[in-house]
C-alpha cells in the first residue's frame, strides 16, 4: 500500500510538520521579514520547501515504480 516510508516521511511529514509547527510557533509574533508579517513569510517559505520535499520523494523513491506513459 505504501511503497516507501522514506517517501512518506519526506513528502508528507516534513512539509506538514514545517507548516503546522511553524504556524503554531509564529502565530503570535508581530515580527516581519522583508516587510511581510513573519507568519505569512513562513508559510510562503513552505511553498518551495513542499515542492522540494515532493521532488525528492518522486526522484529518489517513487519514480521508478511508475512506468513511463506510452
Amino acid at each position, binding site marked *: 500500500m*505504501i511503497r516507501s516510508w522514506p517517501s512518506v516521511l519526506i513528502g508528507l511529514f516534513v512539509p506538514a510538520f514545517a*507548516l*503546522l509547527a511553524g504556524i503554531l510557533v509564529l502565530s503570535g509574533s508581530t515580527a*516581519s521579514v522583508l516587510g511581510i508579517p513573519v507568519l505569512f513569510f513562513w508559510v510562503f517559505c513552505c511553498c518551495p520547501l513542499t515542492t522540494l520535499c515532493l521532488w525528492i520523494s*518522486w526522484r529518489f523513491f517513487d519514480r521508478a515504480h511508475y512506468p513511463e506513459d506510452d
Partner: protein
Amino acid sequence: MLIAIVAVVMAGSIGLAVWAGRSTRGGGISEFLVGGRSFPAWLVYFLAVGEVYSIGTMIGFPSGIYAHGASYGIWFLGYILLAYSLGYFLAPLVWRAAKRYDAMTVPDVFGRHFGSRRLELITCVTMLIALVPWGQYQFIGLQVVLSNLGLRLDPVQSVVLAGIVAFIYIAVSGVRSPAFVSILKDLFMLLGVVLVGVAVVIAAGGTAKVSGPEVLSAAQTTMGGSELTFAMTTILFQSIVFYLGFGGAYVFPARSERAVKSSTVWMPMYMLIYPFLVLAAYYGVRAHPDLDNPNTVFMVTAKGLLPDWLLGLVAAGAALSGVLVLAATALTIGGMVCRNLAPNVPAAAQRRWTVVAVASFLVLAAVLTLVASTLMLTILNLTYNLLAQVVPGWLAILFVRRVRTAAVAAGMVAGVLTAIALYVTGATFGGFNAGLVSLGVNLAVVVAWSLMKPDVARTPVAHSAEDAPDAEAVPSLSA
C-alpha cells in the same frame, strides 16, 4: 479600453476552447467528461491549478484578510499547501479507482465499488448539494469583478454574461476547454496579481509600509485563541477534503498514475503568487478602510492604482478564473446528473443531456447568487463541509476491506444533515472547524456500524493495481 481588453481576452478564451476540442468533436461521453483519460502530466497540472485557484484567490482571499485579519489568510494558504503533500500520495489512488471501475464521476466509483445504486444516488445528491454553493461562489466573485470596473453592467447582466461564456466552454469541447483555457487564465491571473502587488508596494513606498509592524496592528497580523484553533483545524480538514472531495474533476482525465503523481510535485510553486495578494489586501485595509462589501477590496485597490488598460488585464485574469471554474463545476454536475441521478440515460445520449444539465446548473447558481450573496469565504467553508461527507466512503474504497455499504450511505446522510444544521445555526465550537464535527459524525456511523456488522470483503483500491477486477466483473449501474 478596459471593456475592450476584457472582451478580447474572453473572446480569445472561447477561441482556445473551440481549438481544444477540434479533434474530439462528436466524441462520446468519456471524451466529454474525462478527456478519454488521456491527459499528460503538464495538462493535468494546468487543469488542477486552473480549478484550484479560482476567483476565490483574487477576490475571496484578500477579502478574508481584509475582514478577518491574518487567520483567514493563513488557513486559506495552509490547507492548499498541505493538500498537495496529501494529494501526492492519495491522488494516484483516486485515479486508480476511477480506472478500475471505468468511472467518469465520483458516484460512478462509489456505486460500482459497493455494487449499490442507492449509494450511487446518495453520493450524487451529496455532491450536487455541495457544488451548487461552489458555483455560487464563482458567480459572486465574477459579479464583484464586473460591477467594480465602472462598466455599465448591473448584477443580472454580469451573471448572465458569465454563465453564457461558461456554457460555451463546456458545450464546445467538454473537459478539454477548462484544461486549455486554464493556461490562458493562469497567464492573466499571474499578470493581474503581480501587477496589483507591485503597484501597492510602489504606491506605499516599500513592503514595510504596506504590511510592516509600523502600519498594521498586532491584531491584523497575528492570531491566537479561537482564531488559531479555527485556522489549524480548517487547514487539517480542508486539506483532506481537497483531493477526496474535489479531486475527481482534475484527477480522472489523467492518462496514468504517473501523470497524476508527477504533476503534483510542482503545484506548490504556483502559490508564490500569494505574497502579492497579501500585500494587496493589507494595502486595502489602510487605503480603503470603510468598504461596504469586503469582497470588493482587491478590485477597488486595483482600480485606485492602475491605469485603465492595466486594470483591463487584471479584470480579464479575474473573470477568466471565475468563468473557468464555473464551467468545470458545471461539467462535473452535468456528468453526475446524466450518469448517476437520471436513471437509464443511454450512453449515446449522455453527452447531449450533460449539456442540458450544465445549462440548468448555471441558471440555478446564477439565481441563487442574485438572491443570496454573502462573504465568499463563508460559502467556501459550506462547500467543503458538505463535500467532506464523501471522504469516509473514499477512505473505505481506497484502504478498507469490510465496510458496510449501508453504513457509508447512512454516514453520508448524517454528515450532510449535521453540516447543514451547523451552518444554519452558526455553531462555533470555540473555533474548532464545524466541518470536522460533521465529518466526525459521518465517520462514527461508518466505523461503528461496519465493526458491529462487517460487510462482504471488497479489495481496497490501494492494495495493488494488479488486484483490479476484469471490466466484465464490474457491475455496470448506469451505462
